[in-house]
C-alpha cells in the first residue's frame, strides 16, 4: 500500500494548468479551514463556457493533484455543468484519495464555485447550481475518519 496512487502522484508531480490567466473573467480563492490549504482559480469564460482554467495552490499533495484534475475537468464545460461537479468527481477522476485526504478535494470544488459565483454576481447571472451557495457561510467539514 502506498498513500497515493500513481495517478495522484502524476498530477502532483506534473500538475496541469498551473498559473494565472491574464485578464481572467473570473477568479476564486478559497482557504480550507481544515488544513490551511489555499487554492486560487482563474477562468476564461466565453458564452457561459469555461474555455480555460488555471490554478495556484498552497497545499499538500492531494490539494495540488485535485486542483490539477479539477481544472482539467471544468475546461470545455458550461458554468452549470461545472457547478454540478463535486469534490467526489475529482476524487474519482484521481482514482481515489486516502480517507483523511478526501477533504482536500473540497478545496477545488469550493474555489471553482466561488469563481463562478463571483462571475455570476458581476454579470447578474442566475445559475441553478449556485442555489444555496453562500461563500460567507462557515464551511463545515464532515470528518468521518477522525479516529483514524
Amino acid at each position: 500500500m502506498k498513500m497515493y496512487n500513481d495517478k495522484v502522484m502524476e498530477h502532483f508531480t506534473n500538475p496541469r494548468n498551473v498559473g494565472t490567466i491574464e485578464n481572467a473573467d473570473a477568479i476564486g480563492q478559497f482557504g480550507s479551514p481544515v488544513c490551511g490549504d489555499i487554492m486560487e482559480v482563474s477562468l476564461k469564460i466565453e458564452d457561459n463556457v469555461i474555455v480555460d482554467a488555471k490554478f495556484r495552490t498552497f497545499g499538500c499533495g492531494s490539494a495540488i493533484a485535485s486542483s490539477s484534475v479539477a481544472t482539467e475537468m471544468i475546461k470545455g464545460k458550461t458554468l452549470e455543468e461545472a457547478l454540478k461537479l463535486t469534490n467526489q468527481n475529482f476524487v474519482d477522476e484521481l482514482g481515489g484519495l486516502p480517507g483523511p485526504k478526501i477533504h482536500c478535494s473540497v478545496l477545488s470544488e469550493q474555489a471553482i464555485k466561488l469563481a463562478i459565483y463571483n462571475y455570476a454576481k458581476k454579470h447578474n447571472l442566475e445559475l441553478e447550481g449556485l442555489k444555496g451557495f453562500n461563500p460567507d457561510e462557515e464551511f463545515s467539514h464532515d470528518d468521518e475518519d477522525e479516529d483514524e
Partner: protein
Amino acid sequence: MKQIYLDYSATTPVKKEVLEEMLPYFSENFGNPSSLYEIGFEAKDAIAKARSRVAHIIGASDREIFFTSGGTESDNWAIIGTARAFKNKGNHIITSKIEHHAVLHTCEFLEKEGYEVTYLNVDSNGRISIEELEEAITDNTILISIMFANNEMGAIQPIKEISRIAKKHNIVFHTDAVQALGNVPIDVKDLGIDLMSMSSHKIYGPKGIGALYIRKGLVIPNLIHGGGQERKKRAGTENVPAIVGFGKAAELAEANLDRHIKELETLRNYFISEVTKRIPDVSLNGSLENRLPGNINMVFNYIEGEALLLAMDHKGIYASTGSACSSASFSPSHVLLAMGLPVEKVYSSIRFTIGDFTTKEDIDYVLDELEAIVKKLREISPFNKDNVMKTAQVCNC
C-alpha cells in the same frame, strides 16, 4: 532510486552489533528470567548487564533503572506516578507547551482528574524561561516535567537550572530525555534529575523498550500491576531480547558520543548554510545553540510542508513535518506555534534529522533535489515575496 533517510528523530535503524546481541535471546536463550535456575538465569544475567549499560550512560546506579515498553510509558509512569505519590502534598504540575504528546496528553488526563497544570511558554528558540518557571511555582506544586531536548526543533533546555529551582522548592523534577539520550552528555547526578524517560529506538536500539530512571529514595506507585518483575515496580514478562538490544545501543551511544555529536553538527551546519545560500526565503526554526546535533527544522516560505515532504519522498528522501505521531494528523505543530512562529510559516516548515548513517554525499544529493523541488512548488503557489500569505487566511482549527 537512492533512498535517503533523514528522519532519525522519528526512529533509527537497529545497528548490526545491536541486532547481533539480541538474536540469541529469541529462540535459544529464550528462558523466562523470572523462572528459577539455569534457563532463567542466563536471561537474568543478560538483563543485569543491559541495565548496567543503560545506567552507565547517564551516570545512574543499576538499581535506579527500570525497563518499560518505551518512552511513552516512561513519561506516563513518571507523571501519573508522581501525581499519585504526592497527591496529599498538592495537585499542581508545571510542564511546557512544547512537550511531546506523551507528556501533554498525560497532563491533560490528570487535569480531568482534578490536577492543575501550568504549561510554560518558550521563547523563539524554544527555551523556557527560568524566571517564568519560578513564578509558576505554588505551594501546591508537586512536579516539574520539562523535556531535555525537543523532538521537533531540537532545543535543549537548561536542565541544571531547572533542577536547581525544583530542588530549592522541594519539587520532583522529571525530564523526557527520549531525544537527548545519545545526543547530549547526561549525568543525572550532576544535573539533579529525579525521574528521566528514555527510549531505545531513538538510539539505534529496538522499538518497544525504554526505561525510567528513578532516583534512589524517590518512591512512586506502579503504573502496570502484576508479577514481581523489575524489583516489583513494572510487571510483565521481561522483553529480554529488546532489553539486551537497548543495553548494547546504550553502550555504543556512550562510546561514540563525542564523535557522534561532532560529525552530526558538522553535517547539520553544512546543510543549513547551504540551504540558506541556495534557496531564497528560508529560515531556521530556533537557534544553532543548544540544539540537538542532528536537528534541522526550516521554513520554506510560500509552500506547504506536506507537499514538500511528498515531493521529497517521491525522490527517495524521507523527512517529516515534526513528531511522527502527529504527522498523520495534519494539525500545525504545537511546538512551532508555541515558539511564536506565524501559522503560515508553521505550515511551511519541515524537519530533517540526520544520524549515524548520514553521509556528506547524501546531504549533497538532498540539497540538489530540495532546491529543485522548492522551486517547482513555489511556481504552483499563489504566494511569493510580493504576495505573502497572511496568518488570517489560515484558520487554525
